[in-house]
């Protein structure tokens, strides 16, 4: 871990240890009084009322001064009013236009899926899960539009652009017709500006970025993974398909091609992991983008990735890799192993769920005895006494001489003791 990260983490730990005085007894009395009275009155409610009265007066003055707070943008789909957060999808034969209240237009291309993630009064965020979108963003002062695709983010203030993301091939493309955009993501070396007529292609699998500029006049009829034919016609004559370019966004041969090749690419994370360099492996994973690995890595690789997270102290990586393994490879040995590791990495209440999942997947698996023992520990720690007794009985019936047998007997004896009292 490098020094700044260490310092930041130390700082956050120090922050976590900071506290302030709190009169618990007074709080309890206040709470119980309100509870008995059956109403949620408190000093804050009185203040709230005073505040509301003041706010009403100020608001009236503001209206008098013709100050009206602007509203968030709204958008329409062919089916009616669009809903923020609702998924939108097209098949291979259709497109879906979205019309925003300040006249921005977005077209979800064929065979694509995405959603408007959030809207504000100055713009919106559109998440492209797969496929392509064409957008004509109206340039207004302070416009704030974002297109999100895999690990990439495109910031727009006003422009016409095309964004494509192919999660299966891990290829991202943005082509700008007018204006300019700023792209962030792996292999881009920080914020990268893409201007009118330029095309930026990032291929995560080959760790390369290609940037085409000049000699290309972008056309509005956009391209995307699903419109090969249309794209071939709308672009300058394609001579070859650049490796890593999503279908339909093929660059012309006369365009200058710059690439950010593997000289910038670090050693593969798997090689570093095998060498025991878990910090290095973690850094390599971050450069690639862990999100793309969750989607594309094999089940075994996801377990290795989790190990990198665990041993480098990045438990988010560990957890998410294990969850991805469970999600993408259900009913496999690796998925069961992921459940077991999730149990080991979780708090006691959650751990029980994961150890049960392992036992459901692999009742006679190599780790079944250990999983049942850890399940007993988890239920005991979570103070789920009935569940702990049940697990204790299961454990003793299967492993009367197992390492958790003493705990199981103590668990059952404790219950008998309670009854005796």
């Amino acid at each position, binding site marked *: 871990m490098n020094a700044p990260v260490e*310092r930041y983490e130390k700082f956050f730990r*120090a922050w976590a240890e*900071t506290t*302030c005085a709190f009169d618990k007894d007074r709080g*309890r009395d206040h*709470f*119980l009084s309100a509870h008995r009275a059956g109403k949620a009155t408190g000093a804050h409610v009185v203040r709230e009322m005073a*505040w509301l009265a003041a706010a009403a007066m100020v608001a009236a003055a503001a209206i008098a001064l013709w100050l009206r707070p602007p509203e968030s943008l709204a958008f329409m789909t062919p089916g009616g009013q669009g809903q923020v957060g609702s998924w939108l999808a097209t098949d291979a034969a259709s497109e879906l236009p979205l019309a925003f209240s300040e006249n921005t237009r977005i077209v979800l291309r064929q065979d694509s899926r995405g959603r408007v993630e959030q809207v504000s009064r100055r713009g919106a965020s559109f998440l492209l899960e797969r496929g392509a979108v064409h957008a004509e963003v109206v340039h207004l002062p302070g416009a704030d539009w974002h297109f999100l695709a895999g690990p990439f983010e495109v910031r727009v203030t006003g422009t016409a652009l095309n964004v494509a993301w192919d999660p299966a091939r891990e290829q991202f493309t943005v082509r700008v017709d007018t204006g300019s955009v700023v792209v962030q993501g792996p292999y881009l070396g920080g914020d990268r500006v893409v201007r009118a007529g330029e095309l930026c292609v990032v291929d995560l699998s080959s760790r390369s970025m290609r940037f085409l500029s000049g000699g290309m006049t972008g056309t509005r009829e956009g391209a995307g993974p699903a419109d090969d034919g249309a794209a071939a016609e709308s672009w300058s004559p394609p001579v070859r398909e650049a490796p890593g370019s999503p279908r339909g966004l093929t660059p012309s041969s006369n365009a200058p091609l710059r690439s950010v090749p593997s000289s910038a690419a670090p050693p593969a994370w798997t090689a570093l992991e095998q060498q025991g360099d878990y910090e290095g492996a973690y850094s390599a994973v971050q450069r690639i983008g862990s999100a793309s690995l969750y989607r594309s890595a094999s089940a075994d690789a996801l377990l290795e990735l989790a190990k990198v997270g665990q041993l480098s102290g990045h438990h988010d990586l560990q957890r998410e890799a294990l969850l991805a393994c469970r999600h993408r490879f259900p009913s496999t040995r690796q998925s069961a192993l992921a459940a077991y590791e999730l149990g080991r990495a979780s708090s006691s209440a959650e751990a029980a769920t994961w150890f049960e999942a392992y036992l459901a997947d692999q009742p006679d698996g190599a780790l079944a005895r250990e999983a049942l023992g850890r399940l007993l520990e988890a239920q005991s720690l979570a103070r789920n006494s009935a569940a702990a007794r049940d697990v204790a009985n299961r454990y003793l019936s299967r492993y009367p001489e197992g390492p958790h047998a003493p705990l199981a007997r103590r668990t059952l004896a404790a219950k008998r003791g309670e009854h005796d009292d």
Partner: protein
Amino acid sequence: MVMTPRGQSPRLSVARPPSGVVRALPFEGDDNELVQAILAGRTDAATVFYDRHVDSVHRLTFRLLGPDTEIEDVVHDVFLRALESMSRLRDPAALKGWLFGITIRVVRTRIQRRIRQRWLTIMDPHKVPDVPITSEAGLGEAMRDVYTILEHLPADERIALVLHKVEGLSLEQAAAACETSLATLRRRLARAETKFFSRAGKKPALAPWLRGHHQ
């Protein structure tokens, strides 16, 4: 004989009643049983509910709001809301996490309300209330810088930063607590970190901490 001090509510330990006095035993049981007892109207269960969870609710509230005169109000509000909506709690074993979610919603509302107040310039935008804080690591004044910066972050970004970096929740847990997707949580966190660190470098008490030059 264990006497319960006057004015204090009974705790989990079993206090033997004085002879000749009939008194209900204090509530005992896990969160599952606790929820059932509260729904059955047992006041002693409400007391145990408060005592069992108030520290974690207060800690989270403080981390999100910072030194603030409204903290006690927020904690009060959280517990009352929890009682009011407890009948809708689907999984009583998840009581703590559910309470966590209520805390975040109440705090978010407070922060957003404060932003509205600031818009109307009723409140000094740079003022962090002068509430004493305790920092074992000696952060002291740096914490006031921290919360001055947080006052200028959108509520959702502020919450994402605190939940993940300070409270120690995994990204997935933080996303669930914020009732949002993992991708959205990541973006909020990235924005919050960028803004936080860019502004922290200009704060006289905080900057040395981040440069590793603090005493």
